[in-house]
C-alpha cells in the first residue's frame, strides 16, 4: 500500500467515524433540538410546572380575541389538539389566524398557556399578492391556510 493510499483510507475511516458519532449524538438529543412542542407533544409529555417552554402550532381560525390592556387570547392548534394562549403585548406583523406561531411561556393548567413572547412563523411559500388572491379564490380559505408547519 502506498503512503497516499494509506492516508486516503485513514481519512475516509476518520470521516465515517465522525459521521456516525454525529448522527448518534443528534438522534440522542432529538427532543432538545426541536425549537417548539406541538399541543400533542405537550399532552403526551407534560413539562414540569413552572418550566418555560415553547409552544408551536397554527393560530386557529376565528379564535383571536383582543381584550383591553393589550391582552390577546387565541388558540394554538396542531389539528389534533388545541391549547388556549393568553398574551399581553405587541404582536409581530405576521401574526394571523391560520398562520404558524411559536409562543414562549409557561403552561398554566391543562390546556392554558401564558405566553411571554410571541413569534410568528413564516412558511416556505413566496408569491405576489395577486397570485395569492386568485389561489385563495380557487382553493377556498381552508385549504389555503393549511401550511406545512405541521408535518
Amino acid at each position, binding site marked *: 500500500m502506498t503512503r497516499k493510499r494509506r492516508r486516503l483510507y485513514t*481519512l475516509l475511516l*476518520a470521516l465515517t467515524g465522525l459521521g456516525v458519532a*454525529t448522527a448518534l449524538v443528534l438522534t440522542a438529543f432529538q427532543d432538545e433540538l426541536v*425549537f417548539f412542542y406541538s399541543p400533542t407533544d405537550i399532552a403526551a409529555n407534560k413539562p414540569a410546572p413552572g418550566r418555560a417552554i415553547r409552544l408551536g402550532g397554527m393560530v386557529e381560525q376565528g379564535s383571536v380575541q383582543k381584550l383591553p390592556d393589550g391582552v390577546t387570547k387565541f388558540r394554538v392548534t396542531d389539528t389534533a389538539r388545541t391549547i388556549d394562549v393568553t398574551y399581553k403585548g405587541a404582536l409581530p406583523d405576521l401574526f394571523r389566524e391560520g398562520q404558524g406561531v411559536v409562543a414562549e411561556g409557561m403552561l398554566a393548567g391543562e390546556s392554558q398557556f401564558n405566553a411571554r413572547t410571541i413569534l410568528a*412563523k*413564516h*412558511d*416556505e411559500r413566496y408569491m405576489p399578492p395577486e397570485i395569492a388572491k386568485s389561489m385563495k379564490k380557487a382553493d377556498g380559505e381552508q385549504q389555503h391556510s393549511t401550511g406545512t408547519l405541521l408535518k
Partner: protein
Amino acid sequence: MNLHRFANPARFLRIARVVTPLAGWIAVATLLAGAVFGLVLSPPDYQQSETVRIMYVHVPSAWLALQSYIAMALAAAVALVWKHPLADLFVKAAAPVGAGFTLLCLITGSFWGRPTWGAWWVWDARLTSMLVLLFLYVGYMALAGAFDDEERGHRAGAVLVLTGIVDVPIVKFSVEWWNTLHQPTSVFRLGGPTIASEMLWPLGLMVVGFTAFFVWIVCVRLETELLHRKIRARLENTPA
C-alpha cells in the same frame, strides 16, 4: 494521477488568466441584473410585502457559505492525502470569502427576522448551526495562522475544516429533521419550488452572480499569493 495537472501553479496561472476576468464580468453583469430585478422590478410578497427582497441577498449568501465550505473541505482532503501545493492555498484563499458570506447571511437573516418573526435572533437548529459554520471559518483562519511553520498551520487547518464538514448537512437539513422557527427549504425540494417564478429567476441570477464573484475573488487571491511567493523566492535567492 490526473489531478496533478491542475495542481501545478504555472498551469493554474495560465488558466486563471482566462477564468478570472471572465468570472469577474459575469459577476458584474448578473449581480447588476439580479439587483435591478430582485430589488426593484420583482413583485412584493403576499405576506411579507417588501421585506421579501432581503431574500435576494440572504439566500445566495447562505448557499455560497455552504458551497465555499464544501469546496474548502474537498481541497483540504486533497491537501492532506495528495499533498498538492495549490490545495492548501485554495483553502486559505477561500476561508475569509466563505466567512463573509456566512456573516452576510446571518446579518440579512436577522434584519428579516425582526419584522417577520418578531425577533432578531432565536436559538433554533438552523440559526445555531449557521453560527457554528461562521465559527468554523473563523476558527480555521485563527488556527492556520497560529503556526510559525506555514506547512504545519495548513495541516492543522485542513484537519479542522474536514472535522467541521459535519455541520454542513446539519445546516442544510436542520429545517427538516427538527421543527425550527426558520421555514423549510423553498427551492430544492420534492414537488418543486414554492417560490413564484417571477421571484425565482431573479434569485437564480443572484446565485449565479454570487458564485461568479466567489470564483473571481478566490482566483485573484490565489494569483496574488502565488506572485507573492515568486517574489519572495527571488529575493531570497539574490545575494544582498
